[in-house]
């Protein structure tokens, strides 16, 4: 493949003996059917299988239970969609939620909402499972014993009577984006002027605001217009991955990477980072740097741009020349480029980024500024600690969040909590914090409670519930209202009252209803602010940290599965492989191959990590492309007080995490423990073996020869020995996946899981190689093992016209529909697995065990009623969401009109923030998919086998800076 060496993994690269053992080890001693299963088979199915054809034995009486009173506008059997929002770290994204018979079953992005634009993230997709999580806390607890909301109310009334002006009252809440809650906060502080309220997020972005304060003298929120930027430099900002504050960012970015003809242009992305992130994978030029090098590089860049000329040269050599080249490229694109810094970077780096953007005339074009939607103040936790030490802490109220688990290590939050005479915790589960609190209140899930919230750009939305609280949960607003002794107490009243007060009397109700319907409240976005940089201050500030003599630097990353630990009990997320490492059900200390060699470590080795006198044990994982001399630790694992799914999964890295600016650079000691730890990965199977699977070229190559995609494949002219079936009548479904847009996030995978009732199988089964995901995100490395590039390829059933799987099925359980679908009939399948063996794409999934076993009623509510739940022993696979196709077809017929292009969206397509997946009718020459099939970049995976896949891929392009080729090669 155009000179590139694709390889599987370090072990494989040098076919070492250890590697072979590793491969062996990858599979456990015995078949353990997974006990912690989460879902069960609808027994009816089994029953009807069993009964089919039995003699006339009495049929078990099945009941039909119609409602006593009809519900307005509700027709049994028809799904309804409602707009609402999901709030993460105080920022809201708009959702559209599908409900069947009153149970939410599927989440999509709200097209009307500025931050989602119809896309939904993996976290949003998985929220459905959390809603029906039977391990959520089910009642108010007092000292761990069952209590009640009323009892709590009584207690609080008396307690706060005594509290007077709020002496010794501290409230720690998660970030507040909700205007109505903000107002209640104000009210409460009015009533208790001595009280303190801290907004804390373990993954807060204080540095970002601090940076803008340095640059402009006031805290401002930068708002990015990625679709305007032609050159983007990311300083450790994973803005396509876990630092992404709005799916719309990805959409905007991806739009600038659409290339359909050689004349089209595309943006260029530079990334400087320590670990390998999704953004890094998309980069045209990625520079790996230890945390301490990044500020230096930022400063270098500023100097190259003639801004910080006065500052000393921090590091001569390579970074310098690199910075030069980038600087030149940025200068060439004044007003059309963008520099952004990540939340892990110190304020100074953010300040520099603001300054550079300003200097390059990007402000107001690729970036503009508004009021911040949320302000968190982790640093104020120290005041709390001080107060506690001085014995002044009387009452501690924790509104959401789990500080006992994730607060900065040096605070020893647990001890701090014990000092409070009364501590009240509101949270979705009885977690580490709840265990220490004298009162615990179950928090309502966002799909079951009223509220409101703001998107990053300030746009406000109503959070409307789709179901009554399953376990009688309460919202933060309700608890605050209770504490503040506010007359109104119910979440609905609190939100409704706040907003209707904002609007003209007569119109209020109409606007309210409209806002509910649209999912956004009109004219609520923040106005743009044009700040002026405080140049003297900027000149004086040096971004370079004190030279860190540390052997090993450490950086802490959010988890793609648990975020900051809050999603630990979500099986879908736990089993979704981490995009780059492909680790499931675990986290690990990521180090570079060189560092591993130096420390004599191998993947899976357990090691002790020591920092500032604290030590943890964790397995290491060797991550190609990771910065040398640095360790990346994924947060959010090792939860001890958590539901059955997440308890004890992975290792907790928080004990090593200290607060304060750029603490990450502080030294870390890592020593081998001499034991191995079993990790469940799928990554060892990711090498291209020089096969033209993911076809990739530079924009230049593509311009020189537009058919480069075809040229990269073998020269074959497949023909068949028999007369083929013609697929010319009616609809002919097909799909095109743009590898240039796909960013490798797991949104499609989880959307598919939610839509198609796909079970989770657990770590043991994943280690056996039995994961059930219908869509697989193949990740391949390209280039040297120290600094490779990463390419993605989502692979689901390709719906081959000449499907090898069909021919070999002895019972014709899989065969072809006239619309070109490769139908899979679960109830006919007897499970020979011959089809899977004969599938060159290996996209068929087999129910080796009853993965839906032992499920509680509440969990069954998550099922999509339009899709059969597969029993043990049958094969399953992607169907292009045939249930959606049929639904839309019937709808069109009912309305007596033809189907519109884009009316049918597959689950993966609908949620994809990068709009990389396009599905449609190949018989309609004007459909989007047909046009993409005519795109010169279009090619079929393994097309040379003459399987005639209906899914095809679009060539992956990179847009390297010609000046830098020399640097890369060095």
């Amino acid at each position, binding site marked *: 493949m155009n000179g590139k060496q694709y390889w599987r993994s370090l072990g494989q690269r040098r076919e070492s003996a250890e590697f*072979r053992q590793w491969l*062996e080890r990858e*599979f*456990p001693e*015995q*078949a353990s*059917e997974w006990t912690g299963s989460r879902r069960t088979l609808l027994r009816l199915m089994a029953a009807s*299988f*069993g009964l*089919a*054809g039995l003699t006339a034995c009495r049929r078990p009486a099945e009941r039909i239970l119609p409602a006593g009173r009809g519900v307005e506008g509700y027709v049994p059997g028809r799904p309804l969609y409602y707009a609402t929002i999901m709030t993460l770290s105080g920022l809201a994204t708009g959702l559209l939620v599908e409900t069947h018979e009153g149970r939410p079953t599927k989440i999509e992005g709200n097209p009307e909402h500025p931050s989602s634009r119809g896309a939904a993230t993996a976290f949003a997709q998985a929220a459905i499972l959390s809603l029906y999580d039977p391990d959520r806390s089910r009642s108010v607890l007092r000292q761990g014993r069952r209590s009640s909301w009323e009892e709590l109310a009584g207690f609080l009334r008396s307690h706060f009577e005594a509290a007077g002006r709020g002496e010794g009252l501290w409230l720690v809440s998660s970030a507040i984006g909700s205007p109505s809650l903000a107002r209640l906060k104000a009210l409460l502080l009015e009533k208790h002027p001595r009280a303190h309220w801290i907004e804390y997020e373990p993954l807060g972005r204080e540095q970002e605001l601090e940076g803008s304060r340095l640059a402009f003298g006031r805290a401002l929120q930068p708002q990015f217009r990625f679709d305007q930027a032609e050159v983007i430099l990311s300083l450790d900002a994973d803005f396509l991955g876990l630092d992404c504050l709005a799916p719309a960012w990805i959409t905007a970015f991806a739009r600038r990477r659409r290339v359909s003809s050689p004349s089209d242009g595309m943006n260029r992305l530079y990334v400087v980072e320590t670990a390998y992130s999704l953004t890094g994978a998309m980069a045209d030029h990625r520079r790996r740097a230890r945390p301490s090098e990044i500020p230096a590089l930022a400063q270098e860049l500023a100097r190259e741009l003639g801004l910080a000329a006065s500052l000393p040269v921090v590091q001569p050599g390579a970074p310098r020349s690199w910075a030069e080249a980038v600087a030149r490229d940025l200068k060439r694109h004044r007003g059309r480029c963008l520099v952004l810094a990540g939340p892990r970077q110190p304020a100074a780096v953010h300040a520099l980024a603001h300054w550079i953007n300003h200097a390059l005339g990007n402000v107001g074009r690729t970036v503009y500024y508004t009021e911040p939607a949320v302000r968190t103040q982790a640093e104020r936790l120290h005041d709390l600690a001080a107060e506690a030490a001085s014995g002044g802490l009387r009452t501690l109220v924790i509104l959401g969040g789990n500080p006992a688990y994730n607060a900065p290590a040096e605070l020893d939050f647990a001890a701090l909590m014990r000092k409070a005479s009364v501590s009240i915790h509101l949270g979705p589960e009885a977690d580490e914090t709840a265990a220490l609190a004298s009162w615990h209140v179950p928090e309502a899930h966002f799909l079951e409670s009223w509220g409101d919230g703001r998107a990053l750009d300030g746009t406000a939305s109503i959070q409307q519930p789709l179901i009554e609280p399953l376990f009688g949960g309460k919202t933060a607003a309700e608890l605050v209202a209770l504490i503040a002794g506010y007359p109104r107490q119910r979440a609905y009243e609190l939100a409704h009252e706040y907003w209707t007060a904002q609007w003209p009397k007569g119109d209020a109700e109409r606007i309210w209803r409209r806002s509910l319907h649209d999912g956004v409240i009109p004219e609520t976005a923040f106005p743009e602010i044009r700040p002026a940089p405080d140049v003297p201050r900027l000149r004086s500030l040096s971004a370079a940290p004190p030279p860190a003599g540390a052997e090993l630097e450490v950086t802490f990353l959010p988890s793609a599965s648990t975020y900051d630990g809050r999603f630990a009990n979500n099986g879908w997320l736990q089993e979704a492989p981490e995009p780059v490492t492909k680790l499931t059900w675990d986290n690990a200390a990521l180090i570079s191959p060189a560092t591993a060699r130096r420390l004599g470590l191998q993947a899976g080795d357990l090691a002790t990590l020591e920092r500032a006198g604290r030590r943890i044990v964790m397995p290491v994982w060797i991550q190609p492309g990771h910065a040398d001399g640095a360790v990346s630790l994924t947060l959010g694992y090792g939860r001890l007080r958590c539901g059955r799914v997440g308890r004890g999964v992975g290792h907790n890295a928080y004990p090593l995490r200290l607060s304060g600016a750029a603490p990450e650079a502080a030294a870390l000691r890592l020593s081998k423990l001499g034991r191995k730890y079993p990790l469940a990965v*799928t990554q*060892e*199977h*990711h*090498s291209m*073996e020089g*096969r033209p*699977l993911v076809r990739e070229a530079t924009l230049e190559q593509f311009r020189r020869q537009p058919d480069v995609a075809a040229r990269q494949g073998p020269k074959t002219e497949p023909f068949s020995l028999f007369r083929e079936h013609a697929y010319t009548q009616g609809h002919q479904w097909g799909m095109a996946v743009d590898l240039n847009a796909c960013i490798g996030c797991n949104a499609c995978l989880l959307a598919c899981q939610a839509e198609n009732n796909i079970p989770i199988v657990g770590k043991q*089964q994943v280690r*056996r*190689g*039995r994961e059930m995901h219908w869509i*697989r995100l*193949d*990740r*391949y490395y390209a280039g040297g093992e120290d600094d490779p590039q990463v390419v993605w390829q989502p*692979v689901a059933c390709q719906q081959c016209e000449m499907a*090898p799987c069909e*021919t*070999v*099925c*002895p*019972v*014709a359980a899989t*065969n072809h529909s006239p619309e070109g679908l490769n139908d899979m009939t679960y109830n*006919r*399948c*007897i*499970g*020979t*697995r*011959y089809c*899977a*063996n*004969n599938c*060159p794409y*290996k996209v*068929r*999934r*087999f*129910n*080796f*065990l*009853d993965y839906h076993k032992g499920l509680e009623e509440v969990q069954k509510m998550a099922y999509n009623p339009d899709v059969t739940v597969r029993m*043990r*022993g*049958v094969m399953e696979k992607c169907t292009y969401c045939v249930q959606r196709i049929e639904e839309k077809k019937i709808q069109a017929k009912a309305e007596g009109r033809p189907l519109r292009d884009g009316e049918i969206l597959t689950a993966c397509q609908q949620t994809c923030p990068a709009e990389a997946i396009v599905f449609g009718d190949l018989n309609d020459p004007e459909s989007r998919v047909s046009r993409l099939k005519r795109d010169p970049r279009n090619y079929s995976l*393994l097309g040379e*086998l003459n399987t005639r896949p209906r899914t095809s891929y679009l060539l992956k392009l990179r847009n390297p800076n010609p000046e830098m080729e020399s640097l890369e090669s060095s």
Partner: protein
Amino acid sequence: MATVSSSTESALVLGRPSLAEVTRTVAGIVERRTPRAWWAAFALTGSLTLVLLAMLGYLVTTGIGVWGNNSPVGWAFDITNFVFWIGIGHAGTLISAILYLFRQRWRTSINRFAEAMTLFAVACAAIFPMFHVGRPWRAYWLFPAPNAWLDLWPNFRSPLIWDVFAVSTYGTVSLLFWYVGLIPDLATLRDRAQSRARQVIYGVLSLGWRGSARHWNHYEMAYLLLAGLSTPLVLSVHSIVSFDFAVSLLPGWHTTIFPPYFVAGAIFSGFAMVVTLMVVARQAFGLQHLVTMKHLENMNKVMLATGLIVGYAYGVEFFIAWYSGNPYERFAFVNRALGPYSWAYWIMVGANVLAPQCFWFRRLRTSVPAMFAISILVNIGMWFERFVIIVSSLHRDFLPSAWGMFRPTWVDLLTLAGSFGLFLTLFLLFVRFLPLISMSEVKGMMAAREGA
């Protein structure tokens, strides 16, 4: 009774026993009271059979997940065992049918034995396709039975359906062949019966055979026909089994050489198993003068020949993989010889290609311990051949992202062991209650020799 003469003696029957002596020797085995050793062996194999039943029970109630199979390795021990046993089951019919047609006299004293082995091997083989499916209680959908509910039929394009027909036909015809051969001897046992029970049982089983000239007239024609039918049948069965792989598009499976290669391999393994069992049986029951060194040597020669064919096939596979220029094919075979499963590949080569070379030397060819050891090696080797073809091809195919490794579970191993238990149990019952050498044929041959 005559005693064994030196191993250089190459006659088919030693010491010119009288017809009566032949009868006494063979029927005697059945009529003598059960030896202790038999009971011991039976207890052992019987308990292994129970293990098999237990494993299958666990499998059906819990799911295929109790095995090591996974994605991409959808088939592993299950189909490996199936092909292995079917292969074993080829020697019997081959000896009785093909050698019969070629008028190979030396077949007479071993064919009954070999046919019985065939039947039991096929019985063991049939278990695996039945139970390797995810929902065995639906396995009857494999047969073209009309169904009032579904109105659905099997997919006759699938090699698995061809298997169903081939294996069931083969089993049935082998049974007929074997039973027809037994009828005259059953009559003998009836006539020699010392107890009423035996008299009635053998009497019914022999269908009232009288050895009348008219009987023999039709009988010989029927036997000839069965032989003529079984010959293409036996070749077709393993060809069709090989289609399971050849018809797919998997590199390492999709190979046109498979049918002849599989047939040769089947004969190879079948003869190996016959030798293994025969060596023990003739020792145990003192049949050295009926099953002579000549028989064993001939079988060893056949093993040498088929071993060479198999070895040749191994070589050709690699040549074609290279010659075809198909990168996937090339990788598959390099991976076979050098990949994570190379150990299995080299065991296979060692046992199937190298070991039989010993049979070039008369001394080894005619040494009972040597042939016993080598035949067992070949059995192991042939099991691994199937394992290599199935697992090493599946575990790394087209998309490296989907590659995986197979690791057997304890259930896999016990099921395999259990199938041997079943096989040997059936065999012990056979040698205990039925004449393990065809008396009428031996007598016929002796008479013919007198005539000559």
